[in-house]
């Protein structure tokens, strides 16, 4: 079987959709953050697939920065989770409603 660019694009589209579904349907903050990681990873795969397809290295360099953003996001996000757990004793997003009018 000859691999084509569309194989990779379709796969990363499906994984992105799985990540969106996870963010929208789960109520556990940790799993929401994991779904965001899935989405970032699928975007990374698209970048690398196009980079390989176009024989242009910029996409691969950009993946470095995406990984940096992902690490920073997880570091801060989990610190927020820890703080919320300390204040509320739960990590269910349904209980984080202080800003509700």
């Amino acid at each position: 079987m000859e691999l084509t660019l569309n194989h990779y694009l379709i796969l990363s589209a499906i994984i992105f959709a799985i990540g969106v579904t996870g963010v929208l349907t789960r109520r556990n903050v940790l799993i929401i953050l994991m779904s965001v990681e899935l989405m970032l990873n699928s975007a990374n795969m698209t970048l690398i697939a196009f980079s390989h397809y176009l024989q242009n290295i910029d996409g691969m360099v950009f993946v470095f920065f995406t990984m940096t953003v992902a690490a920073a996001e997880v570091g801060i996000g989990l610190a927020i989770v820890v703080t919320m757990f300390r204040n509320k004793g739960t990590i269910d997003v349904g209980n984080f409603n202080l800003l509700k009018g």
Partner: protein
Amino acid sequence: MQGVMFIVLALVTLFSALMVITRKDPVSSILYLVLTFFCFAGFYVLLGAQFLAAVQIIVYAGAIAVLFLFVVMMLNLREPEAEEGKELIPIWKPLGYAVGIGVGIVFLSYLASSPGPAIPPLNGGDEIYAMGRADFLGKALFTDFILPFEIAGVLLLAAVLGAVALAKKKRV
């Protein structure tokens, strides 16, 4: 050979990605997430990004997954949280599934409607795959992308400061 590898990896990736968002216990979600990261590293190797495959395992499977596990251990979630009740919108979950599947259908219909580009040799020779080596990446990173590189440093600094400020207990 590569086609077979792609199919196997794709099936494992889809299965473990679905497991990540469906498990009740966060620990098993994290373990499936690690499996997904390893599969992504496999795809990167197939696409000739060898260095990024190694980085994927070092950063995601080595550091980010550990961070998730630490938080799960820290929070002492003895019983899986109730997934029902106290919804802001009653049909929240079906709506979420509908939107997620809708996003997937939009992407896939676009990809299926376009005829698909004529493909360069994804099975090509050595020189096609040389691009993902660390020295080529470094040459690009430290010439064209020097400013984003320094900004990435500032971003990491912000991450350290934010994490310490948020998670550190106040001294009494």
